[in-house]
């Protein structure tokens, strides 16, 4: 390594001390419980360490980019949109998105009259096949409790003000179906390609806490 340019560069920015990234402390109670159960199940040959690693790879391969692709296609292809609203899972499978957890998917269309919001009050049910892992706030108790008791206040904290004339529908995802919000297509996107449209669709818009982003330059 002659020119240690990258290293020096990184070092210049490393003026703030922070904790070493690593497991240096004693594991917590649940960490130990998880390790013990995992090792026991592997020892008893219910599954292998490789299968656990593989499942983590399955989860890691799912990101909100998949959901954004689905939304962008629905915005540009009315037939696909109709199929998506009729059977979310089958329409996603058309695009090659598999449902490794064998859940069904209901896609909820936001309109001028209805705004949809997704929550799982029991735990963290989430459309993982199309969005990946949920954000931490989605799994935290304040969101889970407040989304069903005062959804409009929760939405307002995300900056989303829903007029009283618009019906708010909160979908508590608790059993075998997962939900995905189809946000409204932003104005000023006529002629956009699917890729351009997909770039406007965020994870949070597909949970229903915010609308899809407006294109650059469209903001007042």
């Amino acid at each position, binding site marked *: 390594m002659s020119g240690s340019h990258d290293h020096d560069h990184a070092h210049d920015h490393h003026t703030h001390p922070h904790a070493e990234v690593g497991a240096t402390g004693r594991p917590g109670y649940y960490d130990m419980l998880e390790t013990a159960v995992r090792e026991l199940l592997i020892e008893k040959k219910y599954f292998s360490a490789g299968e656990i690693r593989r499942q983590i790879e399955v989860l890691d391969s799912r990101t909100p980019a998949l959901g954004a692709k689905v939304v962008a296609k629905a915005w540009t292809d009315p037939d696909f949109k109709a199929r998506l609203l009729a059977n979310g899972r089958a329409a996603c499978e058309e695009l090659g998105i598999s449902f490794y957890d064998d859940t069904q998917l209901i896609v909820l269309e936001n309109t001028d009259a209805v705004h949809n919001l997704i929550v799982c009050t029991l735990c963290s049910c989430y459309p993982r096949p199309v969005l990946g892992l949920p954000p931490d706030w989605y799994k935290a108790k304040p969101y889970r409790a407040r989304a*069903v008791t005062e959804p409009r*206040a929760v939405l307002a904290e995300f900056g989303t003000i829903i007029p009283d004339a618009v019906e*708010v529908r909160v979908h508590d995802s608790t*059993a*075998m179906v997962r939900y995905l919000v189809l946000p409204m297509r932003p104005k000023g996107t006529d002629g956009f390609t699917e890729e351009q449209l997909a770039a406007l669709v965020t994870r949070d818009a597909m949970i229903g806490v915010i609308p899809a982003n407006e294109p650059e330059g469209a903001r007042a």
Partner: protein
Amino acid sequence: MADQSLNEKSAALGLVTATGELPIFAPGARVRIKDRTPIGHYRVPHYLRGRVGKVDSIIEPVAVDNEEEGYGRNAGAKLHYYRIAVPLTEIWPDYVGAPRDGLYVEVYETWLETVP
């Protein structure tokens, strides 16, 4: 999602269907989410027990009861899940929002009863 006329079509053919094969609640039906507290795994949130709502739609196909599946019993009898719509004002008497705001939840057939 559901073929809402399956019951009528099979009846027209003179078919005898198995117990639990066809949905027993139709879209639009008024139902109460049962108020019970079983021991073990359950999926019906407490805040919805005893609440009255409307069947929004029938979820096809029939599915295993999550409560049984929680104990590894993932085969055998299957029944329908229903999407139930409950007004938020029905759940929270002091709800602040628009009167049409609603809660939608999927509930297994064994947790629903007809409201006369």
